[in-house]
């Protein structure tokens, strides 16, 4: 049955309405979980607030497990969904750069939109930075075009690379995530004792 749009169950005309609705839910969830505050987000790196880790890992394990069940029930064909292509080296380098941007800026693109919505000036500046960054990238693209396309492995999943069934990855991720929830709880309690409470 699913995915609906690639299978033609829903026509492309509804694309943008659906995009808007999904975006609204996404934004609502990000904001209400506290992702509109950069100090909340960055707290994950200093141990005083693990909200990012909790939301993110919970979302990943629920989605992983859910997709596997949906695939099994025949509701969703996992072979037909888009798999993010892997470009090994540029992805690693890009993620390192993003890591710096994350700690410096305190947002990622999605969360910065919600923070603009509730009136955070730093989020607006961050988004302007995003714009400039992508512009710089496009302008200098010819310089590292070869690098940009290097390390291409195709649209591979973990199963394609390792041969281990996806369910084992879902299970391992779940265990890691749940363990980290309990461990970070202890860390968070300890760190918060020595920290002056911050305003949101």
């Amino acid at each position, binding site marked *: 049955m699913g995915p609906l749009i690639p299978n033609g169950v829903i026509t492309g005309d509804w694309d943008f309405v659906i995009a808007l609705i999904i975006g609204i839910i996404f934004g609502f969830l990000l904001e209400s979980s506290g992702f509109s505050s950069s100090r909340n987000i960055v707290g994950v790196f200093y141990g005083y607030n693990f909200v990012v880790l909790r939301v993110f890992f919970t979302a990943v394990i629920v989605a992983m497990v859910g997709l596997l069940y949906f695939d099994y029930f025949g509701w969703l064909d996992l072979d037909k969904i888009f798999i993010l292509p892997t470009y090994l080296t540029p992805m690693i380098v890009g993620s390192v750069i993003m890591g710096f941007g994350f700690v410096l800026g305190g947002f990622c693109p999605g969360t910065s939109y919600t923070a603009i919505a509730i009136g955070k000036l730093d989020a607006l500046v961050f988004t302007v*930075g995003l714009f400039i960054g992508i512009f710089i990238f496009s302008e200098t693209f010819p310089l590292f*075009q070869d690098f940009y396309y290097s390390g291409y492995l195709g649209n591979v999943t973990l199963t394609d690379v390792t041969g281990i069934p996806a369910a084992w990855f879902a299970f391992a991720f779940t265990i890691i995530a749940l363990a980290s929830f309990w461990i970070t709880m202890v860390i968070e309690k300890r760190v918060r004792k020595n920290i002056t409470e911050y305003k949101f």
Partner: protein
Amino acid sequence: MEINNRDNNRPHYINPYLGGVLLGLLVIITVYITGRGLGASGAVKSAVVTTAEAITPAHAESNPYMSKFTGGDHSPMYNWLVFESLGIFFGGLLSGILFGRLKKIRIEKSPKITNKTRLIAALTGGILFGIGSQFGRGCSSGAALSGSSTFSLGGVIVMLVLFGTGYAIAWMFKKLWI
């Protein structure tokens, strides 16, 4: 407890696990409907291409990166991710109103730094994130969240390296936040 006194002033957030479960279900629904996951940085890319095209169309066409996204029947802004990002904005607004967080324009920062420092850091962070997201084929929501949910190797790599770098360098910028 000292913290308890301030609970009344604290903004009300939903339980992070509730947010996480709902977000996970949203990813499933999104994949179920569209066959691909969520994303956010793609909208800014569309905006960049559109702006460049509006100012100097010839330049945008000749740029090997931007030309990948120009030349369709519609403007690059007529794009799934742009609409989704608009939705993110309005969703955030809705939640801000509901939970009383929509206030006048303000800057959030550590009390130890000036507004200027914070804004410069935010701008630098934005620029770096913008460049990095192009190499990483997506940002934390597009690549890390949706990518790893669909068991993509690239998605997992982005997630691990992104957070790993964060932890590795966090001590350098401690002053910005605490």
